[in-house]
């Protein structure tokens, strides 16, 4: 269950990337455009001469501002479609269309109910908005996400539905928009009654904030961040910015209510000596984490990305960081980690809250037009003078925040192995071993027939056509969802040229390397061909060979007379000790054993026993097995020089362990990038005490497979 939830969240996070990639550009347009078309800005800096309504510069800025905000205003729709596309298994374009339709239908249903209940005036203040011309409840991106997820679920269930003959025209993918319309009509009705309760709860929290001083400011800041993904932050902060909840004050003889109004009235007033912190406490806290904290977090994500992915994610992260820094639009950055690493977002919320509180304590009086980027800081802080605003504290606290964000995020990502951009586990080792039988089969047949044999092997290995629920691929892996995972035969898949097979629930990942996309399309073509009903017909001789292989594999353990058996400590490829590129191992100075070239950075216990010692540098571990064998597991060659970097130990000295327990995790790519091999020998260091130690595996192994026998 936990795996499934995690898997879904991962996919949601990935499906966000399509709309998110657009946000930095939209953010810059909006941020720059709106700052310089803001009447207060123009007035304060006497820009009226060059920026005036109707003038060329104003119009250009206005176009920037409005096109940028067109993206943000319709973010929910983008997410409704983007998530549907990302989550749909097949026929993704139909899911996108259905997402758009469902979103319109849901909001229209809400709109009609709002009208029927007395219109916007009858609803709570700030609880409604206009989306694509439809007056509806303020649900923010959350509205789009529930549409996207629901539509994808409906789509995956119904896209291949067969209807009775009379209605056949409406079957298959055509049925999806139809069913989505009906479902989201109902969802809209439900949301109309349900959502106001959520909104009411939020505005009650506002009252709490007001009555609790500095702590109140902290709560305000934390909640404001926490509500962003649900679109509820407007309901929450607008009353502070625009109504008497944010205080009221007499400025130049006029009563002004609302924090933002107070700030701008003071800005316009000639008699302001110091800006009222009672108002700006609802705003100033944004600056430190938006200009300093989040960009540092982006840097942490960049640093934590896999080496070869850095270039790709660097662009995304840098533009998102720049947007946050300059304009205070943080969604592009926040949405890159909110779903893949919710805990990180929680930490971010707490730190953001603290930022508000610290600004409150230091009497920082910098307001903003709509967010806390460098543009607003310059206009409403620096240019007003430190004596009025204490803006210098923003920079001081901000610099500290940058350090805190960087280390906290980097630590969390690496220690908890969070899947932030560029860390998705879809990369593998270059293939080290050839599957000679497949190579032989390829050379036997003409080039056209070869891929069919591969496809047939894969299909048979996956339990036949009837066992497949979904076939997809990423850069290097075939990703299949099967109906019965028991039917999957790893040996057949490996025969087809795979360097590894990973199972998670009903998901099977078969690792082929970059050529996987060709393998996938060949497989799809093969699945559509009549031969696929009986893969054996294609396989012929090579299949028999495979059967023999399997029998041999199965009979091997039963013929064993070993006293002690060690099980593979990693997923990977067996390397004979003699072939390890280090004479200490290859000349067996440390003892007999076997090595594995890992395909996954996880070292598991090869037997039951006790941890004798974990090296300080965490690259090696000594285990005393329950039967008395002294086992040294040594990750990589010369990795002692890394001083523990890229390794994480999960056990400590003296700890009792069971076969298959995770001992050490390590970052294969990072270690290779440092110039070390990751070949991992398993050495019996008290070899002298046994008469024979023989290898029991070759080629690919999975952790837990028999690997050596000791007599």
């Amino acid at each position: 269950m936990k795996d499934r939830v995690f898997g879904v969240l991962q996919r949601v996070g990935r499906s966000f990337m399509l709309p998110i990639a657009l946000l930095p550009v939209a953010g810059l347009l909006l941020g720059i455009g709106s700052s310089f078309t803001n009447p207060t800005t123009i007035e304060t800096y006497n820009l009226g001469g060059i920026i005036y309504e109707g003038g060329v510069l104003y119009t250009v800025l206005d176009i920037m501002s409005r096109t940028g905000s067109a993206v943000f205003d319709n973010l929910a729709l983008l997410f409704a479609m983007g998530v549907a596309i990302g989550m749909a298994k097949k026929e993704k374009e139909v899911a996108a269309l259905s997402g758009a339709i469902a979103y319109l239908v849901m909001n229209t249903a809400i709109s009609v109910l709002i009208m029927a209940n007395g219109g916007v005036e009858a609803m709570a203040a700030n609880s409604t908005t206009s989306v694509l011309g439809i007056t509806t409840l303020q649900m923010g991106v959350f509205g789009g996400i529930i549409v996207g997820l629901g539509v994808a679920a409906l789509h995956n269930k119904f896209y291949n539905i067969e209807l009775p003959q009379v209605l056949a025209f409406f079957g298959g993918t055509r049925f999806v928009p139809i069913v989505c319309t009906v479902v989201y009509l109902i969802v809209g009705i439900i949301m109309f009654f349900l959502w106001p309760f959520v909104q009411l709860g939020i505005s009650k929290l506002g009252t709490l904030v007001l009555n609790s001083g500095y702590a109140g400011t902290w709560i305000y800041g934390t909640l404001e961040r926490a509500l962003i993904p649900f679109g509820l932050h407007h309901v929450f902060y607008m009353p502070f910015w625009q109504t008497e909840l944010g205080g009221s004050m007499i400025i130049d003889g006029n009563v002004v209510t609302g924090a933002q109004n107070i700030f701008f009235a003071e800005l316009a007033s000639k008699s302001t000596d110091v800006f009222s912190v009672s108002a700006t406490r609802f705003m100033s806290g944004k600056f430190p984490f938006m200009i300093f904290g989040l960009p540092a977090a982006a840097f942490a994500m960049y640093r934590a990305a896999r080496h070869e992915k850095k270039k790709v994610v660097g662009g995304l992260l840098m533009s998102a960081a720049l947007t946050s820094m300059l304009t205070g639009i943080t969604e592009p950055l926040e949405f890159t980690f909110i779903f893949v690493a919710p805990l990180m977002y929680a930490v971010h919320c707490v730190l953001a809250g603290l930022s508000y509180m610290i600004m409150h304590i230091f009497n920082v009086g910098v307001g903003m037009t709509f967010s806390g980027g460098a543009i607003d800081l310059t206009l409403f802080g620096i240019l007003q003078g430190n004596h009025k605003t204490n803006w210098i504290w923003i920079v001081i606290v901000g610099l500290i925040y940058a350090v805190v964000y960087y280390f906290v995020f980097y630590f969390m990502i690496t220690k908890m192995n969070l899947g932030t951009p560029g860390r998705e586990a879809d990369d593998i080792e270059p293939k080290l071993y050839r599957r000679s039988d497949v190579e032989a089969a390829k050379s036997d047949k003409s080039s056209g027939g070869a891929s069919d044999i591969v496809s047939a092997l894969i299909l048979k290995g996956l339990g036949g056509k009837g066992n497949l629920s979904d076939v997809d691929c990423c850069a290097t892996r075939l990703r299949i969802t099967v109906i019965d995972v028991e039917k999957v035969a790893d040996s057949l898949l490996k025969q087809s040229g795979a360097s590894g097979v990973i199972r998670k629930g009903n998901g099977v990942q078969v690792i082929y390397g970059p050529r996987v996309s060709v393998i996938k399309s060949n497989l799809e073509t093969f699945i559509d061909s009549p031969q696929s009903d009986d893969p054996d017909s294609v396989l012929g001789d090579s299949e028999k060979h495979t059967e023999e292989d399997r029998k041999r594999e199965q009979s091997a353990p039963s013929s064993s007379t070993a006293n002690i058996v060690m099980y593979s400590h990693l997923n990977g490829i067996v390397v004979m000790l003699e072939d390890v590129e280090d004479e200490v191992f290859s000349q067996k100075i440390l003892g007999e054993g076997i090595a594995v070239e890992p395909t996954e950075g996880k070292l598991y216990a090869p037997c039951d026993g006790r941890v004798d010692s974990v090296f300080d540098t965490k690259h090696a571990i000594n285990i005393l097995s329950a039967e008395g064998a002294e086992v040294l597991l040594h990750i990589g060659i010369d990795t002692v020089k890394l001083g523990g970097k890229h390794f994480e130990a999960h056990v400590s000295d003296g700890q009792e362990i069971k076969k298959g327990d995770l001992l050490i995790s390590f970052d294969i790519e990072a270690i290779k990038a440092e110039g070390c091999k990751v070949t991992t020998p398993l050495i019996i260091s008290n070899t002298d005490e046994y008469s024979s130690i023989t290898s029991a595996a070759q080629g690919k192994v999975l952790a837990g497979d028999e690997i050596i026998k000791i007599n």
Partner: protein
Amino acid sequence: MKTFSYTVKDEVGIHARPAGLLAKKAKEFQSTITLEKDGKSAAATKLMAIMGMGVKCGDTVNITVEGADEDTAAAAMEEFFKTNL
């Protein structure tokens, strides 16, 4: 019985490689060779025990050699430490 002590200069201490070489060397002699550091001791032929001592750079190890060929063994071991650690 012969004893000597040695302060490890190799910056990564007695990790797998030197421990392996050390044990191999120690096995060449009849004498019992024992390593001791901070109250922990290990037979020089027992690889896992040596590694378990966790000897780091700057640590001082006391070596005891006892047996028929203790003179040769002690000299050889001292030579080994100097060249390898």
